[in-house]
């Protein structure tokens, strides 16, 4: 999950160990901190910024449990209200379309398609442990960041040939991700800002995804954030999708 999980990080100290960690250790630590909350519940305002500067808004409710269960429901605009999306382990995904009163299984071919018309894809929205899906290579260390290259492990389907992530050295918090297409060209760049501590977790309240090919971008603003509120497992079921 490239864009939401990475917004959170526990605020405990002494996280860094003495010496230089390997790339794998860095990514594993990042996974642990971004997946630290037992559950997450928040509202997301998505602002789609077109080439000519025009904007459109989407508002979604998102709930997540652990690192691999994600529920998304559209609250606006009206023609998308009620559409809900469920991501479960092993690439199992469902969508609920109110017009058909039916929960439909969706296959992984949608992973590389736009999520709700934004510059985020379904793959970008997945719950993920980076260290489980990617091989890591430490490219360099900058002033405040490790720069790590991630390539999909054998057998892992991805729309990206590689990711390059800037991870803060002090709190192992990813602050920038470059995504390269299958041809190896830089495709999208995500940066995040408004980093604050909420309920003991660091939160990047704003993330911006720039689509370099299309010359447009999407901004994701998080609101009403709640951690560890004891979300029930029943939320992450097909039954709940249609509520």
């Amino acid at each position, binding site marked *: 999950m490239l864009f939401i999980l990475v917004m959170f990080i526990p605020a405990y100290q002494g996280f860094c160990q003495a010496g230089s960690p390997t790339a794998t250790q860095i990514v594993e630590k990042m996974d642990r901190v971004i997946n630290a909350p037992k559950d997450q519940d928040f509202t997301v305002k998505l602002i789609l910024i077109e080439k000519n500067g025009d904007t459109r808004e989407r508002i979604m409710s998102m709930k997540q449990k652990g690192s691999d269960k994600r529920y998304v429901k559209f609250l606006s*605009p*009206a*023609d998308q209200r009620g559409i809900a999306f469920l991501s479960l382990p092993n690439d199992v995904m469902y969508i609920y379309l109110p017009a058909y*009163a039916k929960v*439909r299984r969706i296959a992984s*071919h949608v992973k*590389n398609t736009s999520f709700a018309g934004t510059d985020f894809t379904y793959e970008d929205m997945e719950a993920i442990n980076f260290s489980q899906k990617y091989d890591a290579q430490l490219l360099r260390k900058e002033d405040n960041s490790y720069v790590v290259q991630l390539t999909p492990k054998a057998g892992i389907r991805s729309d990206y040939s590689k990711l390059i992530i800037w991870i803060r050295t002090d709190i192992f918090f990813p602050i920038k991700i470059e995504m390269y297409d299958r041809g190896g060209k830089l495709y999208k760049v995500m940066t995040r800002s408004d980093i604050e501590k909420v309920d003991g977790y660091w939160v990047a309240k704003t993330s911006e995804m720039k689509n370099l090919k299309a010359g*447009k971008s999407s901004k994701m603003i998080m609101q009403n954030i709640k951690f560890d509120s004891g979300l029930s497992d029943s939320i992450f079921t097909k*039954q709940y999708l249609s*509520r």
Partner: protein
Amino acid sequence: MDAGKLIFIICFLYLPLSFLTAQEEKVGISGGLQTEDHFSLTEDVNNTWHEYRLDLKLKAAFSDKAEFFSECWIRTWGLPNVLESADLTDRDKVVSMNIALREAYVDIYDFFIDHLNIRIGRQRIAWGTGDKLNPTDNLNPYDLENIWDFGRHLGSDGIKAYYYLDDFSITLVYIPLFTPALLPKGSWADVLSPPIDLPAGLTLNNMSDSITLPQTSLLDSATIGVKIAFLLFDFDVSLSYVYGRDSLPIADKSTLIAAGLPAVNIASELFYPREHIVGADLAGELFSVGVWAEGAVFFPEKVTLTTDSTAVGGSIQKDTVLKEPYFKYVVGFDYTFNNGIYINVQYLHGFLHERGPENLHDYFLLGMDWKLFDGKIKLSPLAGGVEIDDFTDIAGNYAVFYSPQISLYPIDNAEITIGCIMIDGTDSTTFGRAKNNDEFYLRMKYSF
């Protein structure tokens, strides 16, 4: 609009609102305004469909354990039905209007025990994994008013209980009263009826029929359904059973009446046969391609058609028209390419109105959507299908229908769709009988 309708709307909109306001609970109103016009592709370009629909939805959460939902269509439909000056004083004839309560139900969650949810009221219960074509979707009667909206069903007044645990779920449905299907209007009405074979030398002058609805006793009228669903090798699988009545009528008696021979009139008696339906479906993916399959075996009650042609010099003939079980199924796949093109392919054996093992036809259906300009335009250039009734004589038993369309989304919540429907084929096929119904349409919708 009469006073009853007005009262209904007021009740629909305001009683739940006032109740909720009193309890300071959450309530939301949404819906849309839609216009749709069809024009025949003939010399006169006649308007064949005019609909102006206000779709109102009310959703209210009484608590975390209970919610209310209703959807109501308020519509003007069709053209003025004025035959004489007196009709001009009748609002319904000048501006035809109707109201349809599509759904109205209450959900109760964790009903006495965890994971048991109950839904009570008028509801749509959509079963099956196929895309709009679902042989296992037999609890709600068909709503075929708009023949091209295959997936549309009427809501049914009933109770649904749903229990789930991990990847397993079981659904029980009880619908106490039978509701027949809503059939298409106008020239489409005959399309779903089988062609009539008259004895040699006779010509059809007029047809009439009468329908016998089931008794309102629970034994005669009720529908029950049960479905279990589970995950098997990463595929969603379900098994279902329904005991109900076919929502489309079938004739069990036809009487030929002389109308100045060789012309005859036919008077038919129709009813809704009982049936057991055992179904199964699955959905999943193979190599990133979405796949689904769905099938149902129908075990109908025996139907014997008695044809009385004594009035035209014939005899009384009895033919068994429905007895043997028959199997309807659909298989399909979909895929989205990197450039945003989405394709959807289905093969269907047995269209919704077909019954009896020897009467099931084969359909190949293709859909293709291509979103452009950040989703502001959606092209569907390859929508359509092929019907084949006899593979040994395709030239004499085929139909082709092609329905491309373009949808525009100029701003959020607004949708404008323009499309056409073109059909060709032989008269022995379902769609072939509609080959004179080519039309184009314009649909506009705004959601709120």
